[in-house]
């Protein structure tokens, strides 16, 4: 299984959610491949330091930690566009370029696209339930 996590999952792991921490750990423990893109890495830093006001050092460490656990995918030009929401297109394009099975996001516009050309787009809570159903979460 291959998974692409949107920015909010990594930020939640760092700042708040026990659920985000557990789902990332369970994904790694299951040896499912995690992909990430430079776009998400940049967003992690911007959201944590610029938008939420945490230290640049912590934002940088979180970026590096996300990168260490994932395979980097750098999508080139792509026909895949999110209708009416171009800001989400880089996330969709990276997930498609990485050929992942699941994109985990809480973005409502992306969630509305599922299924998208074989890609299942799940909210964090749905992905958490999937891990529970497969007995991958304690």
């Amino acid at each position: 299984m291959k998974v692409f996590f949107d920015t909010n999952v990594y930020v939640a792991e760092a700042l708040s959610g026990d659920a985000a921490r557990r789902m990332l750990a369970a994904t790694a423990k299951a040896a499912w491949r995690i992909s990430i893109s430079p776009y998400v890495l940049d967003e992690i830093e911007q959201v944590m330091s610029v938008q939420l006001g945490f230290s640049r050092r912590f934002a940088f460490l979180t970026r590096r930690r996300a990168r260490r656990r994932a395979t980097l995918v750098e999508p080139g030009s792509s026909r895949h566009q999110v209708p009416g929401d171009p800001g989400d297109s880089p996330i969709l394009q990276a997930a498609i370029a990485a050929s992942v099975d699941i994109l985990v996001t809480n973005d409502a516009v992306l969630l509305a696209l599922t299924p998208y050309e074989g890609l299942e787009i799940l909210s964090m809570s749905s992905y958490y339930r999937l891990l529970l159903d497969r007995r991958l979460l304690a």
Partner: protein
Amino acid sequence: MSHTAVDEILARIKELPDDDRLVLNEFLAQEEEAEWHEEAAKAREQAKTQGIDQQVIDRAVQAVRYGE
């Protein structure tokens, strides 16, 4: 630490054999991981105080993504 000292260290790292460089990289990754956990513990307390939950994080991502 002076630039000269840093340059010397970088030069020595470049001369390391591959196996030693892997050991060094692993050590640095473990150091970063430990630092991240220390910072995360403090940040989570701060986030709790400030009421930063999943909804706030989701909105912050949207704000950055759309330049709000």
